């Protein structure tokens, strides 16, 4: 092998050296942009420069799907094969790419020009089948004739408050306005802001539905002067794409929400952690942050208030688990994305062990609304227990998939009618609620109101707002098989129930899908599912069987009778 010229690497990672270990992911991304992959001498140089043990650099590269320690193609075509895309013949699209280039999925051409990979959900579910092609620092979305370097945003619904600026391209600072909610907030005390957020009844929109005001209060009261605000933009739940649209069309709303959070808890630094499958959002955010800095809405002594706040961007590298808050901290700290045991909780021991507020993009986008109009006005829409607007990511077999903003409280039937109903006049078979970590509903749930309280009563999770529709012709066993593969691919491997359970679940679901069920598979699947649910360390394992267990209740007949009959 010829000697690798390390000079371009040194230039590329120079900015990250002062960050030490927390500069590891950015440095690895920079290295990969230069060389296409991370070779031993490159990893060694990064280890030396950042002061990270060699083996830890290796462990980090190994953890993240989108870091490569072997040569890959200059161009990489990633075809999403998760649920929503599978309905639109993603397998066929992948096969076509492969046969056209004479490759198998996961293979690279001999001249290192091209790699083709099957990918977990790319967050482009409403425009399925989704394909993301990267080429050095460039990317394109879509197949053949419909290629673009920016995904289109299809936004509908009954109201447009969170999505007021979505659907018409990027909103500049000038058209967004100079953070009026922040200006108002800076005239309030931090306690007043926390009280306002608490009074609004806002709960987290990332899936866990934790009360935002309580979280902020915890971090505000936690001892210490070094605190952090993190925007969790690692949107990776299959079927979810709302944060992508909020960030790419209206980046300032999220930034303003972070600033208000920072002021409220007494933090001076924040991070936006974006999944690597959204590379096209990075330049949009970089530009928006610059606009804010140039207008003194970000940086030192903001608007003469004495409040200072800086924001750094962090790019993930292909790991669903990093959407879990403590795994995300580990990732920002330059480690493998292993979730931490809780307690202690992030509000007291978060990023770098310091008090931290971590909120989802959509949650943060509610903050300027609440501060501008006041909690009482904010609560005028939605229900008593689920106030405010909500985004639903509607995909699958509906006439008009897209992002729907509605007040909490519309029924599933109303939402599906807005989306034009089941496509081609077919009957509804099922709706996957809340994503891969969610549960299935059927037509008997059509009149359930979409609120936290009503869905909970119906045994359905709201999760991150996924509403994925399957018509009567769909083979649910294939859907379940893909869920199984997704979790087995994304388990971090830390705790045993999830590390082994997701693998065994996948194997059993593969058999069910292929009609090769073994005696006892049904009980086996249940025991694995409940063990993961009850005993896993983090939310990934605790929900990795959620959809499967709900399907077993709804359609016992699709599991396991094949062998017995034969």
């Amino acid at each position, binding site marked *: 092998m010829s000697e690798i010229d390390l000079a371009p690497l040194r230039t590329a990672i120079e900015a990250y050296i002062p960050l030490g270990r927390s500069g590891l992911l950015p440095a690895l991304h920079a290295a990969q942009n230069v060389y296409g992959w991370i070779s031993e001498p490159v990893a060694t140089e990064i280890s030396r420069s950042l002061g990270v*043990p060699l083996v830890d650099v290796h462990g980090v590269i190994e953890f993240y799907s989108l870091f490569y320690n072997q040569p890959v193609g200059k161009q990489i075509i990633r075809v999403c094969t998760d649920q929503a895309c599978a309905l639109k013949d993603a397998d066929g699209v992948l096969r076509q790419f492969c046969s056209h280039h004479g490759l198998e999925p996961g293979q690279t051409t001999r001249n290192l020009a091209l790699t083709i990979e099957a990918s977990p959900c790319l967050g482009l579910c409403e425009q399925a089948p989704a394909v993301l092609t990267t080429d050095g620092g460039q990317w394109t979305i879509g197949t053949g004739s419909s290629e673009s370097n920016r995904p289109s945003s299809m936004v509908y619904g009954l109201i447009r408050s969170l999505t007021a600026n979505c659907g018409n391209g990027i909103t500049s600072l000038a058209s967004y306005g100079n953070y009026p909610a922040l200006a108002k907030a800076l005239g309030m005390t931090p306690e007043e802001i926390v009280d306002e957020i608490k009074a609004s009844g806002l709960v987290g929109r990332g899936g866990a539905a934790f009360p935002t005001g309580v979280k902020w209060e915890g971090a505000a009261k936690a001892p210490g002067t070094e605190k952090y605000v993190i925007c969790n933009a690692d949107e990776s739940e299959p079927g979810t794409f709302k944060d992508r649209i909020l960030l790419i069309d209206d980046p300032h709303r999220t930034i303003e929400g972070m600033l208000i959070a920072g002021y409220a808890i007494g933090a001076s630094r924040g991070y936006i952690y974006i999944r690597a499958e959204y590379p096209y959002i990075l330049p949009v955010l970089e530009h928006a942050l610059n606009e804010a800095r140039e207008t003194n809405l970000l940086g030192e002594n903001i608007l003469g208030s004495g409040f200072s706040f800086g924001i750094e961007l962090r790019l993930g590298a292909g790991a669903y688990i990093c959407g879990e808050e403590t795994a995300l901290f580990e990732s920002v700290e330059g480690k493998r994305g292993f979730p931490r045991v809780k307690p202690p909780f992030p509000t007291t021991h978060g990023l770098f062990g310091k008090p931290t507020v971590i909120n989802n993009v959509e949650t943060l986008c509610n903050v300027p609304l609440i501060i501008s109009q006041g909690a009482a006005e904010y609560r005028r829409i939605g229900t008593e227990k689920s106030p405010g607007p909500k985004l639903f990511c509607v995909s699958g077999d509906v006439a008009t998939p897209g992002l729907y903003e509605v007040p909490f409280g519309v029924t599933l039937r109303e939402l599906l009618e807005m989306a034009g109903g089941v496509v081609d006049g077919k009957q509804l078979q099922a709706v996957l609620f809340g994503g891969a970590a969610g549960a299935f509903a059927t037509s008997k749930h059509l009149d359930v109101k979409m609120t936290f309280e009503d869905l909970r009563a119906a045994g359905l999770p709201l999760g991150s707002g996924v509403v994925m529709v399957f018509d009567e012709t769909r083979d649910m066993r294939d859907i379940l098989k893909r869920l199984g593969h997704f979790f087995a691919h994304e*388990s*971090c*491997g830390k705790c*045993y129930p999830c590390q*082994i359970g*997701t693998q*065994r679940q996948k194997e059993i679901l593969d058999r069910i899908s292929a009609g090769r069920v073994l005696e006892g598979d049904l009980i086996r699947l249940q025991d694995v599912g409940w*063990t993961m649910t009850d005993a896993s*360390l983090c939310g990934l394992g605790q929900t990795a069987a959620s959809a499967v267990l709900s399907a077993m209740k709804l359609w016992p007949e699709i599991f396991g009778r094949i062998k017995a009959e034969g």
Partner: protein
Amino acid sequence: MKDEIKLTVDGQEVTAEPGKTLLEVARAIGKEIPTICFHEATTANALCRICVVEVEGMRVLQPACIVEAAQNMKIQTRSEKVVRARKTILEMLASTMDLSEAPEILRMMDEHGASHERFPDAERREVPVKDDNPMYIRDYSKCLLCWRCVQVCADDVQYTYALSFDGRGYETQIGTFFEKSIPETTCVLCGQCVGVCPTGALKPKREYLLEQGMSPQEISVLNTGRKKRTADKRR
């Protein structure tokens, strides 16, 4: 004692000092809670989840090795949920790796009525033995990823940083920098990792060779390499 904590374990009222884990509390009253990854010398990470117990009011089972006793806590160490989780975890382990040299886990399986054949057609983690240094061998077909070796090699004991992880999820394996052989890593052959390995995945080379049927005489002949190297250097 002033700040004593009162709690109940399987209906039995117990008092404990603040800061004691549920595992310590249970063991103090003679209630056995099984553990696999837990080791006094390493930071408890609650990986194996075999020590989980049911705590009233908690949505999910709690690992006794790290959860501290709290005032008025009610815990059950052998509820139906707990037993199902432990048994299934043990059965899944047996379907994954070679437990033949992990007598404690085999005994746990017997106690829980866990079957070795519960998961037919399961993909096992099988890799060839790595025999690349004079001190110890690495047989990762026996590795159950308790993390102890990585921990003692790093901040828990030795600060050597020779070991980390390859892969992720079920594909996870203990690994070195770009799969280097042990002599090419930062390893100082301290042997701490061998000492804490619970399954015989890490084993002294001599023990391994004896098991392979070599005689002590044959093994000592292998060690003459050292003499020769010294001689070479002098020349």
